[in-house]
């Protein structure tokens, strides 16, 4: 059962196509991370789902009901879709408890529901306060409680943790995920932070230039991305030329089992290697040279120049120390077939 879905949705602003023929659904209780660079249309997609924008083409569905497109229009207040905004958007003239109660019907148990939600977000004693008396993290939690109080089918988070500093961010996020699971509501998290997307989502949807480029579980998106853009957006990646032969790709650093690109017209491909998949030994039988080294605290990121001149990067624990100029032999230890892409013409 889907909580919410968009089918073939397009939205333009003037000549810009913000969302371009996107189809995506969120299952009941599922947490979906919607990630992409700024301006990719992810927030627009969220507003289309919430009914805060009207699609130019395509349809929007919530809980199996068509709510936009094809002559239908269900306004946001009847969609049963909650939104948590980056600025929390608490009503400044209402107390915390009145904010949370805003979307709850007056009939039966409103006060209990408000208390229950405030407990859920760990703010039991704060009901009588005004929003400006709370910290940023607390405001975000009130916004979450307020959205959940109305028992929506799905809650949309528009960069909801973007204004919080790193430490607070993780804790508010964990709170949020736990609260959503507890309430059984689906969640859609819009973010431009790929680490957050991989950590939060049951599935990850990657957008670029208004189009959806990849939808899938985080591991799949990370290890077998649908496009080069998705590959580089979700993490550091190098592309090494190789020749495809069946389910294998022959490269300068060995023959690697690969997920092949169906679009590949001929045998010439590039395989994606992430730094943590690349190791090396300095046993003098090398062919490759350490050309740069970047200290990252717990680890070193080495840049290795191969005999052909191509470079790959290798992430090593800080205990593995080699000077720039050391001759090394490169090995790939991916633990899974590597992704190969057709070589661009």
């Amino acid at each position: 059962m889907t909580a919410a879905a968009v089918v073939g949705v397009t939205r333009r602003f003037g000549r810009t196509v913000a969302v371009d023929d996107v189809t995506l659904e969120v299952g009941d209780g599922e947490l979906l991370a919607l990630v992409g660079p700024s301006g990719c249309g992810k927030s627009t997609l969220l507003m289309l789902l919430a009914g805060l924008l009207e699609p130019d083409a395509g349809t929007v569905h919530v809980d199996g009901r068509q709510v936009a497109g094809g002559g239908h229009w269900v306004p946001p207040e009847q969609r049963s879709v909650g939104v948590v905004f980056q600025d929390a958007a608490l009503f400044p003239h209402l107390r915390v408890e009145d904010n949370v109660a805003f979307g709850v019907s007056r009939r039966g148990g409103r006060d209990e529901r408000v208390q229950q939600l405030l407990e859920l977000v760990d703010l039991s004693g704060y009901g009588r306060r005004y929003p400006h008396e709370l910290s940023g993290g607390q405001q975000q939690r009130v916004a979450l409680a307020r959205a959940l109080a109305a028992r929506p089918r799905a809650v949309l988070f528009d960069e909801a943790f973007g204004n919080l500093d790193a430490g607070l961010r993780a804790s508010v996020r964990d709170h949020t995920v736990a609260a959503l699971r507890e309430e059984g509501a689906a969640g859609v998290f819009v973010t431009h932070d790929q680490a957050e997307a991989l950590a939060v989502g049951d599935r990850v949807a990657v957008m670029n230039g208004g189009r959806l480029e990849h939808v899938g579980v985080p591991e799949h998106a990370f290890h077998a991305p649908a496009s080069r853009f998705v590959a580089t957006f979700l993490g550091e990646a190098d592309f090494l030329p190789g020749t495809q032969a069946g389910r294998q790709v022959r490269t300068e650093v060995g023959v690697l089992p690969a997920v092949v690109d169906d679009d590949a017209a001929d045998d010439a491909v590039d395989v994606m290697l992430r730094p943590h998949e690349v190791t090396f030994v300095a046993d003098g039988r090398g062919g490759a040279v350490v050309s740069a080294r970047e200290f990252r605290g717990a680890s070193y990121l080495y840049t290795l120049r191969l005999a052909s001149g191509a470079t790959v990067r290798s992430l090593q624990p800080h205990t593995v120390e080699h000077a720039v100029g050391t001759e090394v032999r490169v090995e790939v230890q991916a633990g899974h077939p590597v992704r190969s892409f057709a070589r661009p013409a």
Partner: protein
Amino acid sequence: MRVGGQQRPRRRGGRRGALVLAVAAAGLVLLPVVALLVGVVSGGAEPWQRLGVSGVERQTVSTLALLALVVAGTLALGGGLAWLTAAYRFPGRQVVSWLLVLPLAVPGFVLGLVYASLLSYAGPVQSVSRAAFGDDAWFPPVRTMPVAAAVLTLSLYPYVYLLARAAFRSSAATPYGAARTLGLGPVRAALRVVVPLARPSLAAGALLVALETLSDVATVQYFGVDTLSVGIYRVWRGQFDRPAATVLAVLVLLLALSLLAVERWLRRGARYSPRVLSTAPLAPVRLHGGRAWAAAAVCWTVLGIAVVIPVATLVTWSTTTSLRGVDGSFDTAFVTAAANSALLAAQAAAVVVVLAVLLVHAARVDARRRVRAAVQATLSGYAVPGPVLAIGALLVLAAGRDLLDAAGLPGGGTLVTGSVAALVAVYAVRFLALGFTTVEARLASVSPSLTSAALSLGAAPRRVLRSVHLPLARSGVAVAAVLVAVDAMKELPIVLLLRPVGFDTLSVRVWQLAADSRYEMAGLPALAIVLVAMVPVALLFRRELRDAPAAAPAPVESRDGVDDELRLVLAGTGR
């Protein structure tokens, strides 16, 4: 899957209401313009013949010349004063930089009245000149276009001044500093970096000035300048020639639209507004010695000519003669006119504020493009000069009379002879943009996500209006009411063209007495207008005080004081 189409009709009502309201308001605003266009086409060539091509040509040329003079004058005076007070420190700068806004409270037809009197043959200036140089001494002619342009410049420059100052203060600091470090002197840095950056604001200010100049029918007549708007007034009030007035009104409308297009073009780079690049305010340079006093003298001279002398003159006239009628008895005409002005202003303010609140609300709760487009259309009333709007309204009313007559219903006659209700309706069209922008400015400091949040929590639009928008926009509603009422008090061209016979307002009375050269008699009504018009300026001052660094920020207030000020200026001028 349940397919839609089964929404409960009760809830849908609120949304249809938003659309109906927005479309109706847009129709009300656009109707006079449409009527004009229909009128000019159906009128054919005959009204042109009555007007005479040479006459129209002459009026068009003098209108364009006047526009050029006033726009150039206000850009130089307003822009120059803004740069002087933003970039330099001199004695009294803080006080004078506020006071320089005050001429906004002295409308052109009041300032013109004062100088028409002071510079007249019998006035003090020429009397002194004759006493000093003899009766035959040459004195420059007063009833000329340059004098009219100077008067309009002095009363309109604050538009440019305020917008330019806001632009300089909010955006100039870093680029100006960068230009100086790259080897440019202060003047060249200002011309090559600051002026281009402020171009959108300067263009916006110049547009306001140009539209006001285009609307003016009184000031120019004091000084014998025959513009198209004066032509409209003569042709309608003098000869009741509606088709000819229509032709002239369409010409003025075309001029206004061209001005709007030019401003759009000049603003084309506005989206690169550097407001985001620079948050540091411009650090003014201290002037020393003679230069410091010269800077102060320039500002005080402008203030003296534009505010102090006129107000002092009006006060003198008021205390000596105004309350006595021609025969020496108490002047009841003043009281009647004041009551009429107040009545008209209050009604216009009430209508505008209610409409503005509903429209702001509709635009915020309804995501559909039709609603937003319709709301945008209602704001176009500001671009239509007063005389044009008046003639357009006249055509609409005449059509209304024809309809009533055709249906055999009574009351058609009063539609065209003028009625207070018609005046209120036209004022509503004229000032809707002012009310809307003021209310919207107040709500703009409230994040749009607040409205979205309320809606997504299941609140119907009516509840969003009641529990979110109204509580948060309350102060904006009050300010909008004040601004609209004041502008309605100052308004002259529309009431002059549309008033019922014998219906005098303060502004009409000033105009009539001035036209009869009974300047002293006009002192009291003019002074009353100036005093009322001080209210928005005082509001502006209050805002500046509140936004001063020392003031503690209130929790709900907007974060960007400069932006707020800009909005109030735009709102305060009806744009």
